[in-house]
């Protein structure tokens, strides 16, 4: 998948600098700095309303930051450098940047009028990355990879929640992204379906793709994460390896949160 690691040695997969975001008078992000190295799995934890989803959505410019900037593989997202200043990018350029970043939604957001296969094959064709035949062949491979080879012609509403989310992950993979963002991928699922989705994500963790996962699954974080980030009130209170943050939290808020979640 990511045999093309043509990154400069210094470029982090994701860098967020001084991210601030307000919704009206409500401060959602309050100076977030985050660095994720290529191939790493970063898990973002935090109570609801702590700004996790906003941070994640800012990384592929679904949300625009009020202050601060994001770069992916050294490339600024949503803006370009113009001398000393930053200029907003046009929609076409932003869409092109997003095509290289996978995004998996909490509510799946599969296209209900397209079959599983069409959902996966649509974007590579529409963005000119593959011909129709190539895209369909890739889509079949991806469906097999997420264990749904027999569901190619099923419409999303004919699938269970777990199956839909696996198709959504395959859809994100079809663009061959170097980075995939997961926004609470298992929160809308029945407990018994959570495992099958997490298994697919775990499978990706070893593949060299950079993953940033917002989740409440502490067990998953402990097992898979290289970096655990604890966010509260729009600030990163703590970050480090799972052993540091989950087993030996320094900040009282982290301890309180973990005691409630575990």
């Amino acid at each position, binding site marked *: 998948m990511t045999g093309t690691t043509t990154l400069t040695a210094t470029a982090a997969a994701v860098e967020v600098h001084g991210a601030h975001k307000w919704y009206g008078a409500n401060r959602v992000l309050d100076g977030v700095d985050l660095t994720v190295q290529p191939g790493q799995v970063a898990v973002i934890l935090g109570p609801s309303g702590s700004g996790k989803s906003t941070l994640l959505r800012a990384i592929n410019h679904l949300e625009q930051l009020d202050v601060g900037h994001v770069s992916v593989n050294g490339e600024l997202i949503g803006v370009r450098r113009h001398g000393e200043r930053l200029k907003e990018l046009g929609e*076409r350029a932003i*869409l*092109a940047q*997003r095509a290289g970043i996978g995004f998996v*939604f909490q509510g799946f*957001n599969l296209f209900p009028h397209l*079959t599983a296969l069409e959902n996966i094959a649509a974007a590579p064709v529409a*963005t000119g990355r593959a011909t129709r035949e190539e895209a369909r062949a890739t889509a079949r491979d991806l469906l097999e990879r997420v264990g749904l080879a027999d569901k190619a012609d099923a419409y999303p509403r004919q699938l269970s929640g777990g199956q839909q989310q696996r198709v959504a992950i395959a859809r994100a993979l079809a663009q061959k992204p170097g980075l995939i963002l997961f926004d609470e991928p298992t929160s809308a699922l029945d407990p018994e379906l959570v495992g099958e989705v997490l298994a697919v994500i775990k499978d990706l963790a070893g593949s060299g793709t950079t993953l940033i996962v917002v989740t409440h699954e502490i067990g998953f974080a402990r097992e898979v994460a290289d970096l655990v980030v604890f966010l509260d009130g729009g600030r990163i209170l703590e970050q480090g390896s799972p052993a540091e943050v989950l087993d030996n939290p320094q900040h009282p808020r982290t301890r309180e949160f973990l005691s409630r979640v575990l």
Partner: protein
Amino acid sequence: MSEQSIPAPPFEVADRPPSRTPSASATSDAPSDTRSDAPLSRQRVIPLRHPGRWIATAVVLVLVAQFAHGLVTNPFYQWGRFQYWFARPVILQGLLVTLEVAALSAVLGLVGGIVLALMRQSRNPILRAVSWTYIWLFRSVPLIVVLLVLYNFSALYKTLSLGVPFGPGFVHFNESALATDLVVATLGLSLNEAAYAAEVVRSGILSVDQGQHEAAAALGLPRGYQFRRIVLPQALRAIVPAYVNQLIGLIKGTSLVFYVSLLDLFGEVQNMGSTYPGDVVPLLLVATVWYVVLTSVVSVVQFYVERHYSRGALRTVPPTPLQRLRVSLRQLRERADFGSTVNS
């Protein structure tokens, strides 16, 4: 109680309960159900009777029969003259004009409506304001007024020209040559239709979940593709029923073009009616039947279009009437087969 030993048929045999033999009910009077040899779970439930429904049905049937009888026997309707006029070339010519105007305005109105709806969703405030004003204006002005203003348009503007705004024109049109009755009628209906279609299309776009827009954006799909392949197909599910409503209104609205001296179906009927005053009623019936035929065709088309766009929205697509007929025929046959095996 012989029938209780027969395995229950896989479907309803008839909507009345299995008849018990009179002797059985006479000998074991009261709770024969619980004391029968077959276990309770294998017995068929006796459907509840609905005497009220039967009475209502009878009353309605009598009224309908009375109405139909009156329709046939009342000489006032002059069915002979109806038959005479129904497929006259004059009438068919009018019908053709109606079809032409309705079809053109439906297409132009829908295209205009999509453009207006997109303008209203635009981030450009001027486009939004223009679209809002257009819709406001054309929904406020009666169609007949729009038609009559357009009809008199050539008196207001003698020529139309294409060229630099406020500057010299390159191409000049003579308005009266350009504005034939058909053009005026189609234009008027389309302008009116576009205003309503815009709101129908907008409601369809609004009915698509925000997550769909986000998913399309997150995948980096080009803007036009997002609209054509992701949003519009889902919006059409909400658009089609509302737009067909609009379309039926349009078909009937074409009868107003008579006032801009275009002889459509209604126009021809009016015309013939003033020439043959005795035939006014049968002529109106002719127009009625043709309009009913047109809207019926539209309704049938609607069924199949809706069915097409329900792909994925429903777990199973509803069967077409033909498929339903085939299923009920098969059931009838199975029922007959079952009956013959029971009898033998």
